[in-house]
Structure formats: structure tokens, C-alpha cells
């Protein structure tokens, strides 16, 4: 049995470092940017034509939160090649599996994280905005220098949740032909007829990855806690 473990774990880890981790990190990065933009758009009190933009972003959040991630992956990877518009996409939208994965995971994470960020920004007392404005800061500067650092502390635990979920959800990318960690374990199981062992091993590696993330979260919480009262 050791022999099988010895030969399969490195293959799984290699897939983990080559696909699982990059998929998770890149998607989370773009997802966060998208989430911040979405949260800000939905928080502004601008009226008039801007309402349409707000509506589009609300629709996006609704769409990605109300449909399964696996279905989203299938639509982007298998469905979009049939999305043909004369003149613009005459041959449909054909994406590389990895690109399709990044796009779908980013959009999905962005929708969930936008709600987290929206709540975190709202949780910062209004007086903090006033204090920034009162010293002559612009809205954007106040947001960046004063509000977001405070919102970050509030958003940290739920965002960590999202990131940990994302790391595990990348296993769904196996279904769109990306040879990430779970796909490799499936392949190995088919070769060596050890499904229990292979899937348990891959489960352990996922657990190891997310445990590292949990420690990272604890560390960041420790840093951001220095400016709040000890409980």
C-alpha cells in the first residue's frame, strides 16, 4: 500500500500546485476586485441613469447566487461555444478549460463576497466618513484610507470562509477537463482500483491546504485585532 501512496501523492500534489492552488488564488483575486466594485455600486445612493448600472450588478449577484456552480461551469465551458452572434461571435465563445474555470470561479466568488464586503463597509460608523471628509479627503480617499481598513477586519472571517470554499470547489473543474487534484485522483483510482485510498488521500490534501488557510486567517485576525479592545 505504501508504494501506491508513495507514487500517487506526488502526482496529486503536483496537480494541486499546478491547477488547484492557481485556480483558487487567481479566481479569488479577481473575485475580490469584482466584489468590491459590486459592493460599491450597490452602496451608492446615486439616482437617475445610474440606477440601471445598480440593477445590472444586483442581477449579476442574484444570478450567480441562485444557480449551482457546477451548472455555471458547464454553461461557460460547454455552452458558450454555441453562443453565436453574427458579426461579434460568429463561431461562438470558445474558452480554454483553465480560462473558463477562472472566469466562472471569479464571477461566483465575486457575487458572494460582494455581499460580505457590502455588509462590512456598512458596518463602519458614519462618523468615520465624516471625519475623513472633514479633513478634506475625497470620497475615494476616505474609502481607501479610512473605511476599507476597518471593513477588512469585519469581512475577514466570512471572506476566509469564501476562500476555503473556493479551494474545495475547484474540484468541480475536473468536470470541465481541467486535470486538477481531484481529476488526478479519479484517474489514479481508475488505474490502480483503489478508490477508497485515492479519494481519502485527496481529501487529506484538501484538508491540509485549507488548514494552512485557517492558520493564515488566525494570523490576519491577530494583526487586525490590535486596534480593537481585547474582549
Amino acid at each position, binding site marked *: 500500500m505504501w508504494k501506491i501512496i508513495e507514487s500517487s501523492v506526488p502526482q496529486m500534489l503536483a496537480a494541486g500546485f499546478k491547477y488547484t492552488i492557481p485556480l483558487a488564488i487567481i479566481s479569488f483575486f479577481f473575485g475580490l476586485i469584482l466584489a468590491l466594485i459590486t459592493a460599491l455600486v450597490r452602496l451608492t445612493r446615486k439616482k437617475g441613469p445610474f440606477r440601471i448600472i445598480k440593477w445590472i450588478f444586483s442581477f449579476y449577484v442574484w444570478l450567480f447566487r441562485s444557480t449551482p456552480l457546477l451548472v455555471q461551469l458547464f454553461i461557460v465551458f460547454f455552452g458558450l461555444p454555441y453562443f453565436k452572434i453574427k458579426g461579434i461571435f460568429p463561431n461562438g465563445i470558445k474558452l480554454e478549460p483553465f480560462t473558463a474555470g477562472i472566469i466562472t470561479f471569479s464571477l461566483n466568488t465575486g457575487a458572494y463576497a460582494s455581499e460580505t464586503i457590502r455588509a462590512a463597509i456598512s458596518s463602519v460608523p458614519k462618523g*468615520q466618513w*465624516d*471625519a475623513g471628509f*472633514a*479633513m478634506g479627503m475625497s470620497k475615494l480617499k476616505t474609502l481607501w*484610507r479610512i473605511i476599507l481598513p*476597518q471593513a477588512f*477586519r469585519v469581512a475577514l472571517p466570512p471572506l476566509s470562509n469564501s476562500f476555503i470554499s473556493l479551494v474545495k470547489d475547484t474540484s468541480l473543474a475536473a468536470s470541465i477537463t481541467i486535470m486538477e487534484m481531484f481529476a488526478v485522483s479519479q484517474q489514479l483510482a481508475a488505474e490502480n482500483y483503489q478508490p477508497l485510498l485515492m479519494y481519502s488521500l485527496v481529501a487529506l490534501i484538501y484538508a491540509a491546504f485549507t488548514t494552512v488557510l485557517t492558520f493564515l486567517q488566525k494570523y490576519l485576525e491577530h494583526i487586525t485585532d490590535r*486596534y*480593537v479592545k481585547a474582549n
Partner: protein
Amino acid sequence: MKLTNINKTFGNKKVLKNINLDFPTGKTTVLVGPSGSGKSTLLRTLNLLVTPECGQYEFEKQKLDFAKKISNKEKIFLRQKTGMVFQDYNLFPTKTVLGNIIEGPTQVLKEDKTHAITTAQQLLQKVGLADYATAYPHELSGGQAQRVAIARALAMKPKYILLDEPTSALDPELELSVLKVLLQLAREKQSMAIVTHNMVFAKKIADKIIFVENGEILYDGSPTEFFDPNNPNQRIRNFISSMTLEDL
């Protein structure tokens, strides 16, 4: 600093009705009045945290007409010249005491950081908190926090400092530490406008008293006349006696 014909409504409520006021330079103007009278709104107008529907605002050579749209540039320029101190301090919790004070000078005035730190340390000395530069706001008492807020406002070298009930959240002992700093500033001829419920303090520090009720100015003049027990205005006499517990 001068306001002319200022009107402001929140929903259906008229909170400021045709306000005309002068704020002299180098003097302390104290705004008093019952809760909800509009005095805080008035003060926030001076810092443009509140934008009235109409009226004019003159600050030195700058003139704003609230009937027209105020540009962000005008807003930001004026806010730099009017430092604001809030009732609940509004210090930035993620920054140290020093970080709070140099934030405006380095980010808004684009001052050199070393220079800003030197000035900040002098200001901390002035408000009696020289040893607290590296502390975080949550480690301070209310009185200390408010003195940091005053130092933060001063760091912007504003022409005018606006204080919105600066000691209302403090117990009497801590209040004293803040009042001392304000009296010192008044002696140094720092232009100030203060909203307060503390009549003893108002009497002591004011060069000019403004009494606001229901969004109107009922008194605008010297403190001596205002606090005169024979003030002909019955409403003001009642207000002062209720605020100084003379009725009890």
C-alpha cells in the same frame, strides 16, 4: 466666516430658517440651545458636511452659493480650512494616535512625513499627550481621545476649528482636561466655533454667544448680556436657569 440666508430642511422639518451669522476671526463663538434646535446642523454647514438648500457662505475671499452646485474642489478646499471635532471623537481606530494626526497633513496637504511627525509631536505636547504617540485610540480614555481629535484638527492648520459638543460624551473629570485645552487655544486667539451644553464653560470661553431654537437665531451677541440675570428675553432666562440647575 459668514453665513447669509441659510435654509435647510430634513424631510418635512425645517431645521435652519433664514440664518444670518458672522463668525469673527481670532474669537470663540459659542452656539447654545436646546437639543434638536439645529445648532449642530449649523456647525456642520460650516464644514460642508451638511449642504443647505439655499443661502450664501463666505469664507475669507471664497464665496459659495448653495442654490448652485458646489464643486468637489470648493468643498475640499473649504474643509481643509475648517477643522472639525466631533462629539464621539471619530478617531481612526486602525491608526495610532500619531497616525491619526499625520493622516490629514500627509494625505491631504501632501506634507513631508518627517515634518508632519514633528508637528504632530508638538501638538501632542500641547494637548498633554506626548507619551501616547504609539497608542491606539481604543487604549485612550474619552478625554484623551478628544484631545487627540483636537490635535488632529489643529494639524491641518485650519483657519477655524469647529467643535460639535466636544465634551458631551465625557464624565466631568475627563471633561475638564478637554476644556483646559480649549481655553488655552482661546487664549492663543485660535478662531473657534463651539456647540456646547455646558453653560459654565460657555460663559468662560465665549467672545460671542449664539442662541438657537427651532432653527432660528434668538440671540447673537456678547456673553455678558446673554448671561445677565435681567436678560429681557424670558425664553433665554428660562433656558439658562434650566441648564445651570438653578430651578432645582
